[in-house]
Every structure is written in C-alpha cells, then in structure tokens.
C-alpha cells in the first residue's frame, strides 16, 4: 500500500506538471504591456478583489469586473472611478479613492482582462 501511495504521489505530480505546461504555454502574453502590469499592481495594492471579482473569483459584494469594460465602456468606467458615486447599498459610503493615473492604469488592466477568452462564462445576460 505504501508503494501505491508513492507511485500515485510522483505520478500525479508529473501529470499535473504536464497539464500546467499545456495550460500556460499558449496564453496571449504579448498583449500585456507595461500599462497592464502596473495597472495589475495597483489593482492588487488597493485590494479591489475583496469586494469585486475577476473570472468570478474574489468578493461577492460588488459586481464582477471581468467584462466591465465592455459593459460600461472605457469613458464611463473612468468617470465612475473618478467621481466616486455613493455605493448603492449604503447612504454615505463612496467608492474607493483613486488618483487619475491610477485609474488609467487600472482600466488598462481591466481591458486586458476583458480580452481573455473564457469559455462559456458568464451566462447571458451578464455579458
């Protein structure tokens, strides 16, 4: 039984390593420019993922932002982030404070996310 365990351990690790290679070797890395990278770093620093989600992963108290660039369009999205309207479940709480350069970079990052080919998700009419 001990042999079975070690064979499974080594074997499955190898299979998973192979699957990892096939998963990651052919993604559209060339579309990622400096703006997107910096935008992602800002996105991480501000902790957006705690309320929002990307690819459906993250917090569930604010809209999923995978396709927000398609849904709102860049100008309206930028306006939203700069104007900081009141969050609709509250009376006085506003959306997070962001500087203009930060907004531009985050929107670049979200545009890239928007371009990633996700199979059938989300189901209509979310898109």
């Amino acid at each position, binding site marked *: 039984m001990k042999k079975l365990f070690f064979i499974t351990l080594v074997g499955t690790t190898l299979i998973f390593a192979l*699957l990892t290679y096939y998963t990651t070797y052919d993604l559209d890395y060339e579309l990622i420019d400096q703006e997107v990278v910096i935008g992602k770093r800002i996105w991480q620093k501000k902790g957006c993922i705690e309320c929002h989600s990307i690819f459906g992963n993250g917090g569930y108290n604010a809209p999923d932002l995978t396709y927000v660039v398609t849904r709102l369009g860049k100008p309206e999205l930028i306006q939203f982030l700069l104007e900081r309207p009141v969050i609709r479940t509250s009376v006085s709480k506003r959306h997070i404070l962001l500087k203009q350069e930060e907004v531009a970079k985050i929107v670049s990052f979200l545009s890239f996310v928007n371009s990633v080919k996700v199979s059938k998700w989300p189901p209509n009419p979310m898109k």
Partner: protein
Amino acid sequence: MLFFWRKSNRNKKSKKNSAGKEYESSKVAKSYCFAAILFFGLQSVIALGGGIELVFPDLPAPISFQNGRGIHLNLSILWPTLGLMGMTYHFFATESEVEIYSLKLAKIQLWIFVASVLGILGSLVFGFNDGREYLEAKMPFRVLILLALIIFAYNLLRTYILPAAKKRSTCVVMLSGVISAIILLAPNLLFFAHPTVDDYVRFWVVHMWEELSFELVGAGVTIALIMAITNVKRQLLQKLLYLEASLIVLTGFLATGHHYYWIGVPEFWLIIGLLFSTFQVIPIVLVSYSLLKNLAVKDRKVNNFIVLGLILISSFWHVTGAGLLGLLMSIPSVSLYMHGTLITSSHSHLALFGVFGLMVIAGSYYVLTNNVILSKKFQIKTIISFILLNLGLLIMGAALFLAGLVQVYLWRIAGLDFMEVQILLKPYYIVRELGGVVFAGGALIFTWNIVSLVKKGKISMVW
C-alpha cells in the same frame, strides 16, 4: 450520560494520558495548539465586524472592508495551520515513539509563524494588502511562513529517520502533506502579470493546501487521534490510511480543475475537473463510513467522547458541506450559474471551518487536555461551545446559501443589476450575522475555557 462521567473519573487515579508516556515534544505542541485557539477566538470577533459592515455599511469602521476581509481570509488559513502543526508534532512523537529531533527548532518555528501571523494582521490593519485572495500577506511574511514550513518538514524528516523512530504510515502521510505545502506555496511568492496564470497558481494554495496538503496531514493526525482515544486496531487503519492518502493525492491534484473552468484556460479542465471532483467524494465517504463501522463494534472502548463527537461532526460537514455541495458546484452546467456568487461563500465557510476548523479544535483540545483532569463544569462548557459553534455555522452557511440562490436567479438568470440584488440580500446578511453571533459565542466560551485552564497552571506548555 452516567457512563460518560464514569469514564472521565477513571483518569483521576492515573497521571498517564490516554496515549501513554508524555513526551517533551507534546509540551511544545501544546504551545502551538494554544496559540491557534487564541487566534481562533480573535478570528470570530473580527469576522463579526466584517459581517456587520454588510448589514450597516454606514457604520464607521476602524478597518476598511478590503483589509478586514484580508485579515479574515488569512486568519482562516493560518490558525488551523498553526494548530495542525501542534497536532502533528504531538502525534509524530507518539506515533514514532521518540522525541522530535529538535525541540529548539520547533520553538523557533513556532515564534517565526506566530510573528508572521501578527505581522500579517498588523500590516493589513495599516493597509498593506498584496491583493490576491488568501495571499494578501506581503512578500516578507509569505517568506517567513514558507521558512516555518521548511523548518517543520526538516524537523519531521530528521525525526522520521532517527534509528529509534518507529516508521509509521501516519508519519509518512503527515510528512508528505507538509512537504507538498511547501512546494505549493513557493511559486505564490511571485507576482504574475497574466490574471489567468495568477489565478491558476493561486489555487495551488487556496485549493491544494486544503484538499491535498492539509487533507494528508489531517488524515494522518485524525487516524492517530482515533487510535489514541479508542481501541481501534492499528492494522485496520494503516492500510486504509495509505489507500485514502493515495486517493487524496490523485483527486487533490486533478480536482483543482474545478477552479479552472472559467479563468481563461483550455477547456480540457472542464472534463478533468468534473471527473476528479466526483472522485473526491470517494475518500471522504470511505473514511467516514469505515470510521463509523469500526466504532459501532461491541467491545469498542472510547475514553474521550467530546473529541470523538467533534471528529464525527466534522465528518458530517466533510460529507455534506464540502463533499456534496462542492460536488454540485463542480458540475460545469451548474457552476456556470453558481460561480462567483455567495454560494461559494457558503461552501467555503461550511467546508473550511466545518472540516479543518473543527478538526483542529478537536485535535488541539485533545493535545492540550489529554493528561489533565477536567472538571464536569469544564466539560459541560466545552460541549455547549461546540453546540453553539455548529449551530452558528449552520445558520451562517444556510443564510449565505439561500442568498446565493437569490443571486443566481435574479442576477445570473433574470439579469437584474448586481447592486440592485445586493440591496435585496440585506435580510440574509442579517441572519448570517446572527449566526455569526452564535458562532462567536461558542468560540469565545471555548477559548476562554482553555485560557482559564492555562491560567490555573494545569497545562504544561513549553515555548
């Protein structure tokens, strides 16, 4: 009930614990378990704060929601890990029948880990968030956690190869789990530019730490614990353990696919994820069934009903909250609608706390109190705290699940705006918070109970 009290009175005359000799290593293990329980108590209070924000968003909050949730998520992984380390050190010693190779290293590891947890909490309070769910800790702290795990694996390995150490299956499985946790955390110290790759690697901690590494460690520890509190024979459990461990490895790795449905990776993950998610149920059911079968035997002796009871309750959450609900969510056509809703939140609370939280509470409770004479009052308070914890968990899980169903219907299917639906969910957040109050009540009673035992000097800890 009478039989139960008689059993506990039996320990009065003998100083020996149920496992026999008390190892010096166990005293260090107790420090780990005690620290874990303290963090658990803290977690229950912080979680209440987060839940309140969703009920009364306009209340002034000392910590922003982003940072508070980061604290909540990190604590939810780190306190069980700390407790599991203590349980592993204790049972590795009792199973191998030697002292751990270096108690000094074990103490250093403890302080590195505790310092990291405090550092992570402190840095999040001041807004230093690395922005990846469950991995919000900034780089230096992730390095320290990795270091603590490396020390852990080294110490356990050195213990295993000691000539006097008995080579047990429980130890092999525990050690494998720890080593796998190191390999899975290491790449997560990096920054990933591509969000798909980021999520792909992130789930090596978020999924495989739970469903591979700590499932392995937990399996080894639980089997050792069962042998310590009952007279179930070792031969029976040994074979079962290797079979279970093999299934855990196979399914733990490949069922990760159920997190890879919609993150922008090739579609072969839909098939692999579904297939191995269904297989994941096998080890869970296998263990729960054989546990019950072995316990329901005529001359079965149990010397710690409280711990056994909690392990069985944890098995229940394992089968339902983790297994069945998880399996439902893993069916691609269902996931299409349920993914990214509060159903995930419901599942994570039921699975993570129901399985690992309760396992670590049961094990830490055993490690801390197995050679202490406990008063009836103490045991009653413990049982009450367990009832409150599980009741609170049930209320929270149910509220979040129902809220998730509302989200699925109104947001995903009917197409209402997300925030409009969020406004409608307020009653569910209120019920969830009430469940949280019940839960926190149980957590604090349990924590305070253990603290009072420590204050009376009844627990011999070494750090």
